[in-house]
């Protein structure tokens, strides 16, 4: 029990690992255009062409994992809005 407690106090290795992962991403993003910003604008533009939505009803989440990262767009679209397909116009 005591040994376990002692081990749990060793938080520095966790700090080190989190920093290494984070800084690897931040360094690779340095001096590059804001990828997330560009993706956000282009993806929302495509959707806006077909569906009307409020800009503040958009939530973008990102989760960086070791092998896989996910990018999640959540756009709230009110019911009853006419979805205008490009070919219909």
């Amino acid at each position, binding site marked *: 029990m005591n040994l376990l407690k002692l081990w749990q106090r*060793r*938080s*520095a290795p966790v*700090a080190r690992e989190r*920093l290494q992962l984070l800084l690897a991403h*931040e*360094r690779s993003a340095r*001096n590059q255009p804001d990828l997330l910003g560009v993706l956000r604008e282009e993806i929302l533009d495509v959707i806006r062409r077909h569906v009307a939505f409020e800009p503040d009803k958009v939530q973008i989440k990102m989760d960086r994992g070791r092998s896989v990262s996910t990018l999640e767009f959540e756009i709230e679209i009110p019911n009853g809005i006419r979805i205008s397909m490009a070919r219909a116009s």
Partner: protein
Amino acid sequence: MAHVLVVTSGKGGVGKTTSTAALGAALAHDGDRVVVVDFDVGLRNLDLVLGAERRVVFDVISVINGVAKLSQALIRDKRLENLFLLPASQTRDKDALTEEGVAAVIAELRDRFDWIICDSPAGIERGATLAMRHADSAIIVTNPEVSSVRDSDRIIGLLDSKTVKAERGERVDKHLLITRYHPARAARGEMLSIDDVLEILLTPLLGIIPESEEVLRASNVGSPVTLNNPLSAPARAYFDAARRLRGEEIAMHVPNESKGLFGKLFGRKAA
């Protein structure tokens, strides 16, 4: 030849001003002509840490605006005759610092001093970028703690891109100063170790300043720790760091910690 040194960190409260005062006093004590310049316009504190707060008449902004001559704004330290302070303005805002103004002041200081130590404000805004703008070398002050290490990494990126030297294709020499270090806590795995920080930031180590009550005691009375208690552990660490800055080879002491691979690699390359 004059040497422009910026003391920077990104994060606030890690010890930039304390380290500027302590290193400036150590270099002046060893005979060099030193000026410490406060770039924290609106939130100046270097005057207070040096015990010169009641002697400030003009400041760096008055010099830039032509209100005062440089010689009128420089405050000579009461204890060391070759240590000077160029204070920041407390009433103006950061926009009063202009790129051309700073360049002119630094150029004039280069004629008069061996060391021009620029105490950067926290953050990455105008004050911080202008403080590092003309630097020949940089001291990155880092605490062994995640947010400080991350901000240091960001600052290192700026030193490699936004300085005059970087724009000319040259490199700003970078030195890491680890402050508020608890050797015992690091040994127990409760705090990032020196090797952890060096391995993450890949920057040569200038010194390790242990956490000590002497630092607060010195700032309470308005005296750099290197003058207030020269034999204390933090003062000795600052004196060693100052000698490394001047190119002397001084062994790196990490109390209570065996030196690992990175300490050896970067410790030796320091300064």
